[in-house]
């Protein structure tokens, strides 16, 4: 590592593994070991007791709302003067017709997921 980054790494380590201390070169007595470095973390306030999911799914009532909106999807889009589609709800120009691709959290078009 460059000298400028080494202090950053060391400053986050409270129990440095031997191979990271300045006095021991990287190449000496290295075994294929898996070790842990302490990652300093100041904003972690919340303790999670269970293995939690990444993000909450939209609530069921929101689901119904969206489904209803989909039925009227052809009313959401308007053509502006240039003939480009403008989404009435979001104001997006030239965007996808039909329901909002991210309404269920991932990026969906016609059933296929393109991003998440």
């Amino acid at each position, binding site marked *: 590592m*460059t000298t400028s980054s080494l202090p950053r790494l060391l400053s986050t380590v409270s129990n440095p593994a031997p191979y990271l201390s300045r006095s021991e070169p990287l190449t000496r007595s290295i075994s294929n070991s898996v070790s842990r470095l302490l990652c300093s973390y100041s904003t972690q306030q919340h303790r999670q007791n269970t293995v939690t999911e990444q993000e909450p799914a939209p609530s069921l009532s929101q689901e119904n709302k969206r489904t209803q909106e989909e039925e009227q999807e052809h009313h959401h889009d308007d053509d502006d003067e240039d003939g480009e589609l403008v989404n009435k709800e979001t104001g997006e120009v030239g965007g996808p017709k039909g329901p909002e691709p991210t309404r269920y959290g991932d*990026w969906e078009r016609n059933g296929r997921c393109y991003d998440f």
Partner: protein
Amino acid sequence: MKDTIVAGAYLCDEETVRVVCTEGPERVRELIAMGASFDYGEDGNLHLVREGGHSHRRIVHAADMTGKEIERALLKSVVNNPNIFVFEHHFAIDLLTFQDGSDITCVGLDTLNTETLEVVRFLSKVTLLASGGAGHIYPKTTNPLVATGDGIAMAHRAQAVISNMEFVQFHPTALADEGLPTKPSKPRENAFLISEAVRGDGGILYNLGMERFMPLYDERAELAPRDVVARSIDDQLKKRNEKYVLLDISHKPKAEILSHFPNIASMCLQYGLDITRHPIPVVPAAHYICGGVRAGLEGETNVKGLYVAGEVACTGLHGANRLASNSLLEALVFARRAVQPSIDIMKSSSLDITASNFWPHPIVPFSLGSDITGKIGSVTRELRKELQSIMWNYVGIVRSTMRLETAEQKICKLEDKWEEYLFQHGWKPTMVVPETCEMRNLFCSAKLVVSSALSRHESRGLHYTVDFPHLEESERLPTVISPSSHVNSTWSSRQLHKQPMYQ
């Protein structure tokens, strides 16, 4: 920042998150200046959407293909820049390194021109790896075929520190070709993902015994978050020793199905499946690897002159689980940060071209003859599938110490078997063909995932193990794999030019 850190299950490096969130917008503006066209709103501003895990609308996009558009704009920029030379179809083999006191320095790499079958050696004062992920250590992945963990493996062999490899992101419902009435004639290169919208609209998941299983795992059933669904499906597949589960939307009106999900309907119909009448076969697919080559705030690694950006890197941004759309942003921010240090090294490095013969050169195995190289290719392909199978069965989404240890043993045996076959047939340690190079990298990457997973005695984010099913505050640390000793290491774990015969 908060969304990223929460998604990352509090394993993110705070400073890294701050840097990416702060510098991201400027990087996006630069992309636009370079010609990337993103979608706009009526008000003339970028149109922003909200993806899962985000508390605000902040995702910039280009229709469905944001990554593709960024790639297009960047490639065009590259092609038009007289200072950039592109060497297409050159497959990277190993980094060239030497030890300088206590430092290891990277001064280039060997490549194989896969079109001309010539080895091309590059000497460079600075090297940046942006080689992407390792999805193909699993049988089902969204990754392109080239994602075989090449950069991670090369860096590990070059004594770079690797971090957090246990955190592999899967998508729960990729179309399972093996469940289609008519199988595709050749294996699909990347997975067709069935959107959460299908579940959101009422799709139900069944195992092959037609039992609805999601309520057993979560009271939200099919509407549980993606990671929970992925774990549940994996658990069912393991318990029942099956290859896929079923996602059924056929109870909905036919017209509605066809209007909402035409993409799925037509894809399935091509292979004899009518989703308005039958369930869709689905299986989780490996998508993104949060871990990789450990990088500092400038993309630097512990190997001097070696930088990393993108999925190959582990910068501390993603922690135990990646927030949607953060990977593109991470790549942009870190690539940019690596620029000034690279310039500084350029100016101060005294590398010259005579160093070129310092390391033995890789060779293409013409001397073996096409018969033997054919056999080796065929065995390599077969064993690759076996490796993927081991990874899925023993290092999947729901893990256990026993399964991970079994994986370790099986992979070890498989690697020995493969290497033995190679060397028995006259293969020399410096021989290279793309398939064997990829296989080396797959073994290397797979082993890094297994050993990382074994070392984490808790469940956090993407890493879930039944032996330590809860979060453990004392384990809230990144997993770090330091350079390996060369005693008892396999061919895949050493750089080609550091094979025993040359020492």
